[in-house]
């Protein structure tokens, strides 16, 4: 049987300027298979840095990240192979503007998983169908609305059949009326049992979908627990303060 813990983070630190700025200052966390973890916190709290460290877009200064049994923070690990299993969705979508939607979704499976064009396109179309964008397969990103772009970005990540999806403030760059459609897709993913780590300001989403909420401030995890516990009976003053501002 596979270990139920998918990602385990031990003593993760990220310092800038030789330790003057401590974006992450000793994070211990673990994420189980099928779990939806939402990371909240004030801006500058290190939550995005934490998320980006999980697939080494930020190289940690210190600490371990055990992903599926391998310490990927070790320079000797081939991070590219592990990143194939960790999809990422960005605040600004980061679709490739010079490629069609379909090409955006198939380039990685074709080049990295050596899938045939037909196979990759078939799977991509199934996913597009699910998020209601099959008719836009041959459009270019600039022809899509923000919400549509983010839905494409999500299914692009899914095309690699990842074990976990990392969301870096996926709705922060969207017009308010488009937030809902993206959250819907994320909810249905959660329902399907996808492991997700979500950095977001959408407290409604955290409350409704999260299995666990992590509250970060100043580079450390201040409090974590079920949504009920975090939102209804916060313990630390920092969390109470934060919730008073955002709710």
């Amino acid at each position: 049987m596979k270990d139920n813990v998918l990602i385990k983070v031990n003593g993760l630190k990220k310092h800038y300027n030789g330790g003057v700025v401590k974006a992450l200052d000793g994070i211990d966390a673990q994420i189980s298979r099928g779990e939806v973890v939402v990371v909240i916190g004030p801006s500058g709290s290190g939550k995005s840095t934490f998320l980006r460290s999980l697939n080494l877009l930020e190289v940690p200064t210190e600490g371990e990240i055990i992903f599926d049994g391998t310490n990927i923070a070790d320079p000797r690990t081939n991070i590219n192979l592990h990143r194939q299993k960790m999809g990422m969705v960005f605040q600004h979508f980061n679709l490739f503007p010079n490629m069609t939607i379909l090409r955006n979704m198939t380039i990685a499976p074709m080049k990295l998983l050596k899938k045939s064009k037909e196979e990759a396109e078939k799977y991509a179309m199934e996913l597009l169908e699910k998020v209601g964008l099959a008719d836009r397969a041959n459009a270019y990103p600039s022809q899509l609305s923000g919400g549509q772009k983010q839905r494409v970005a999500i299914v692009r990540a899914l095309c690699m059949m990842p074990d976990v999806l990392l969301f870096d403030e996926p709705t922060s760059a969207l017009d308010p009326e488009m937030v809902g459609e993206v959250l819907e897709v994320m909810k249905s993913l959660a329902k399907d049992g996808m492991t997700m780590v979500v950095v977001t300001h959408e407290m409604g989403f955290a409350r409704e979908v999260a299995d666990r909420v992590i509250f970060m401030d100043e580079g450390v995890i201040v409090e974590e627990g079920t949504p009920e516990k975090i939102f209804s009976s916060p313990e630390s003053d920092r969390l109470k303060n934060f919730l008073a501002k955002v709710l």
Partner: protein
Amino acid sequence: MDSIIAWFNDFKADFILNFVDQQRWKFITTGLKNTLVITLLSLILGVFLGIIIAIVRSSYDKTYDEMRGGVKKFLFSLANGICRLYLTVIRGTPVVVQLMIMYYIIFASSRNSLMVAVIAFGINSGAYVAEIVRSGIMSIDAGQFEAGRSLGFDYKSTMIYIVLPQAFKNVLPALANEFIVLLKETSVAGYVTIRDLTMGGNIIRAATYSAFLPLIAVALIYLVLVIFFSKLVNILERRLRRSER
């Protein structure tokens, strides 16, 4: 009316003297051929050199902070240093001087002046192409790079499949401009005994003691070439842009 006819007759005589007699037009056509060969070959060399240097320079700037030291970092720093030295020297000296150094010093034993010119112009052009391509790579949003990496592409594949195609599109006008500059710069090839287009006109002028027609003809040919290539690039550019709308 008479004066027009007289002028026309003069022109005709001048034309025959400069281009038809003793098949002097051949100096122009061979010259044109040599100019085009030098330009195209040195462009290929220049773009090749330029892309490599641009990748070294921009990769160095992008990843230096994250490199973990050791031999690799040292070699990378060394490569970057060599590239910078190359850019400084090549951009800091006139192309005619570089051409003559190549011909009279470095390849002094070679009599294939055409190939020497290709190497000299190619190395010269490479420096400018490198900076053009580098600005193109730097103009691509860091998010594109991260998106590529997050899908599992390594640094090289991200460059090849995601960054360079977009960068190329952005720098195409500047590259076309470099090509046109290069075409005109080859007119100094006569310094190393190459019979390019300009030299061809010069030979005719020296033989016929008539300056007007050979020089104007040479100028017109350059102009037509430049207009033709500009048009070609415009078409290519439009085709590349179309995909984004």
